[in-house]
């Protein structure tokens, strides 16, 4: 069984030891060899000294889901040796630092141990303790280059680019790299069967994390005001946005900022700032995670009721409460869809990868302004912080923001009467707004208290209900504008009859889902697959669910939150909607899905180890 361009490796490190850049070197070198690759980072909620893992999956078929078994593990953390030894697949390899002897208790008969005296090699060559630690990382990168036949010139080039301004550093890195490479070549039979071979499948692609893509989306959507409070895993959205703004948003004439980013005192303030700015006509957003969404509830209800646009990027982490801040989950679906007390419903978008982080962020601003309401972009830690191979982001220069129904001074003048905020309902339930500062006749009062369609305070039932009913129509109206689901039919997306079984998912699980669909098909279980991209659901969602005898809703939360919304908002009977909750905190792996579906379908589970060569359909993930 050949595993060329089809294997997974795991790095076991200690956080704060600079391993990230070595691991990233390997990722990029593989990418530059034209072979589809992805990288996932598992880090603790801590700054230094705790275990951290990085996983690289090489997949000629382009599968980007989490790998569930590892061909080779680089064990650099003595504390987790036992676990790491266990994580090597039978027949695989363990690479370890043989400066110190490996405890016999860690010996397994079914794997091979590759010992490299990394510390010893580096201590001889580098002076400071910090350098020794850092260079040890580069040295194991060299070892891997030899073992997997990674083109060492690609690694060299990456180092040269990285240290373009510090050639001396580039050189010492190269030395460390060669140290490992040479040692491996000399002592092991290189390359291993799990090896690279150049392909041309990464052209027109980039390596990017979802949070950077989200930030780019906000940049290109024309957001000028951003307010936030630091929180993992959302912080890098704003870090990236800030960096992009500094690069692309300086006024060419004055050098001044065409943006205003405010680090707020807390999440309540951040949401308040977004509302103030949006009310004033700027495109504004915040990025946060679950705890922040909880804190923003009151103002989200305000925005819903007073009809103020707002974009909230929720990079989900494992809940409830503080939960596991550095693990992923899809468990903020309900709190976002139903945010705040009273009767409220919101628009929620579910990107599944960096491309969609980019595109749906732009869509979020358009929808928020079109429907004058908060729009949530529900990303997650896996999408947001991991390294995804992604088709190059495309931008259509003819795009112009949909500012929705905003009346300017002339339009107000034409009214011939004082502007009324909530009375000129269109077919989607939307009414016109005006911006402060434009015209005295345009003035109106924004309030979270009961109001009638003129925007005037009321306690009269009919007046109050009239507005509430329109809000309900407006939410339903949005179903016609939100991104439609992505549907993959076993028989192709033509007219063929639907499969018996429908798979349903959302967000970052998509990569694993597509792989699972292929694997299930290989096992004889033909399925159609729908990935939902927005709430409220477009008509296509219900149609898909109705077509299938049974739909398995795979989601990364305990309580079946997406399925709950489907139960509430569609006419699909409960019996047709089966919940498949997989919510460990790790990104979804295809094998988890395959196992769960097989169990639910009463099928035998696929034999372990049989997984690797079951991939006969070839799909490159978008």
């Amino acid at each position: 069984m050949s595993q060329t361009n089809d294997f997974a490796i795991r790095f076991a490190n200690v956080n704060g030891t600079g391993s990230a850049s070595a691991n990233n070197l390997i990722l990029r070198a593989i990418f530059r060899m034209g072979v589809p690759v992805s990288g996932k980072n598992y880090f603790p909620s801590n700054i230094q000294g705790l275990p951290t893992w990085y996983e690289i999956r090489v997949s000629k078929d382009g599968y980007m889901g989490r790998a569930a078994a590892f061909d080779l593990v680089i064990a650099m953390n003595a504390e987790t040796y036992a676990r790491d030894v266990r994580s090597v697949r039978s027949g695989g390899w363990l690479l370890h630092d043989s400066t110190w002897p490996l405890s016999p208790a860690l010996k397994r008969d079914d794997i091979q141990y590759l010992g490299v005296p990394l510390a010893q090699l580096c201590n001889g060559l580098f002076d400071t303790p910090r350098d020794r630690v850092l260079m040890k990382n580069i040295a194991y990168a060299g070892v891997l280059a030899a073992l997997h036949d990674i083109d060492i010139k690609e690694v060299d080039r990456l180092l040269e680019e990285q240290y373009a301004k510090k050639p001396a550093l580039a050189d010492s890195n190269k030395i460390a790299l060669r140290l490992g490479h040479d040692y491996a070549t000399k002592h092991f039979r290189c390359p291993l069967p799990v090896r690279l071979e150049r392909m041309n499948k990464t052209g027109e692609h980039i390596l990017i994390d979802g949070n950077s893509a989200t930030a780019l989306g906000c940049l290109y959507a024309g957001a000028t005001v951003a307010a936030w409070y630091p929180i993992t895993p959302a912080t890098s959205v704003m870090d990236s946005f800030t960096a992009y703004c500094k690069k692309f948003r300086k006024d060419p004439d004055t050098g001044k900022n065409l943006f205003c980013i405010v680090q707020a005192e807390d999440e309540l303030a951040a949401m308040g700032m977004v509302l103030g700015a949006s009310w004033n006509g700027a495109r504004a957003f915040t990025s946060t995670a679950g705890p922040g969404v909880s804190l923003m509830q009151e103002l989200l209800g305000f925005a819903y009721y007073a009809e103020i646009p707002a974009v909230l990027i929720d990079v989900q982490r494992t809940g409830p409460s503080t939960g596991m801040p550095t693990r992923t989950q899809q468990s903020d679906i309900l709190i976002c869809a139903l945010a705040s007390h009273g009767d409220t419903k919101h628009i929620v978008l579910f990107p599944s990868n960096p491309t969609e982080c980019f595109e749906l962020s732009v869509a979020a601003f358009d929808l928020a302004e079109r429907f004058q309401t908060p729009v949530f972009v529900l990303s997650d830690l896996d999408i947001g912080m991991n390294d995804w191979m992604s088709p190059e982001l495309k931008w259509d220069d003819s795009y112009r923001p949909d500012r929705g129904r905003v009346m300017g001074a002339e339009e107000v003048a034409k009214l011939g009467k004082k502007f009324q905020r909530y009375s000129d309902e269109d077919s989607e339930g939307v009414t016109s707004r005006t911006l402060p500062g434009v015209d005295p006749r345009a003035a109106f009062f924004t309030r979270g208290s009961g109001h009638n369609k003129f925007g005037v305070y009321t306690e009269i039932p009919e007046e109050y209900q009239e507005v509430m009913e329109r809000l309900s129509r407006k939410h339903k109206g949005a179903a016609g504008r939100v991104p439609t689901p992505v549907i993959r039919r076993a028989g192709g997306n033509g007219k063929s009859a639907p499969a018996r079984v429908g798979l349903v998912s959302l967000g970052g699980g998509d990569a694993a889902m597509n792989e699972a669909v292929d694997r299930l098909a290989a096992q004889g279980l033909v399925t159609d697959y729908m990935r939902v991209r927005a709430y409220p659901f477009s008509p296509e969602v219900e149609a898909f669910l109705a077509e299938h005898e049974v739909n398995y809703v795979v989601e990364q939360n305990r309580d079946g939150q997406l399925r709950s919304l489907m139960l509430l908002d569609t006419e699909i009977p409960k019996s047709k909607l089966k919940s498949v909750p997989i919510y460990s905190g790790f990104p979804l792996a295809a094998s988890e899905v395959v196992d769960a579906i097989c169990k639910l379908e009463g099928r035998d589970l696929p034999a372990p180890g049989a997984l690797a060569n079951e991939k006969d359909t070839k799909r490159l993930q978008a």
Partner: protein
Amino acid sequence: MSFIPKPVARHPGMLPNKIGLTLRDYEGSMSTLCAGCGHDSISAAIIQAYYELDMPPHRVAKLSGIGCSSKTPTYFLGGAHGFNSAHGRMAAIATGANAANRAINYIGVSGDGDSLSIGLGHLCHAIRRNLDIMYVLENNGVYGLTKGQFSAATDVGSRSKKGEANVMSPIDPVILALSLGIGFVARSFSGDKKQLVPILKAAIKYKGFALIDIISPCVTFNDHEGSTKSYRHTRKNQLPVLQSDFVAAGDQEITADYEAGSTKRVKLHDGGEVVFRKVPEDYDPHSREKVVDYIESHTRNGEILTGLLYFDESKPDMHGVAGTVDEPLNAVPYEKLCPGSAALKKMQAGLR
């Protein structure tokens, strides 16, 4: 609306100001507050101040939290957009509003409950950011709208309507703001329109965070014997130590009634001038420490020092600090904001 007569500011026959508007054009809808509520007098002073400054009402944005005080933006400047927000969140919302459009004038109205309890954090941080706003704190020492609970501004020993004495130290917003590095802080009294209007005018024209703590008696829940925020108590103990006038840029100055020697004058960023009359010998409205000492020593004696107490316009406001462009962000054309497809392509070359 109410059929009980209210002190609505109405000066019929008033002359139009420089932009051709009469006082009436600065009014809002009729107040629904209790007859005699201090907040209504403040609204009247606000109307007067904007009128005298010849400001077009629609170039003002009015924001507030929740409370009787926070209702008042409905009662002035009907031609301005209003934002009656959530309890305690006004300072944050105003921050966002100002971020989006630095070119219009902002007035924030809040109460002592809204500002010093639920909204305390936002207030402090808006001061730190030196948000460009006039922040009017209508301080009645009580939660009016929820019927008379003590607030964080209630003085020790002040009694509730039922006779209970408050026991917790109050938060003095003036002292607090000074400790946070504020540049404009005043205290006044809703019943002293003569003092209040010039302060409001200076605050409106001030670039940065201008806090005005205004004792504003709640006739329904905190105007009884034993309250230290009643009309009686405030009239008796107010010490209007700093009387100031505001002379708008280009206006004729009325110097007539200044006593020579005791006058201090400060030019504003905007060209206008604040003229302090009768400044006490030992007082310097530009020295933060001295101001704090002065205020505290009087507070200890039960005196309520009023006036424009501290003034310093040297610090840049939020946008000055951030380095934002001069034009309002909400007016920057999209074409200037979007880097375009070529830049995106180029940038992505680095992501391989």
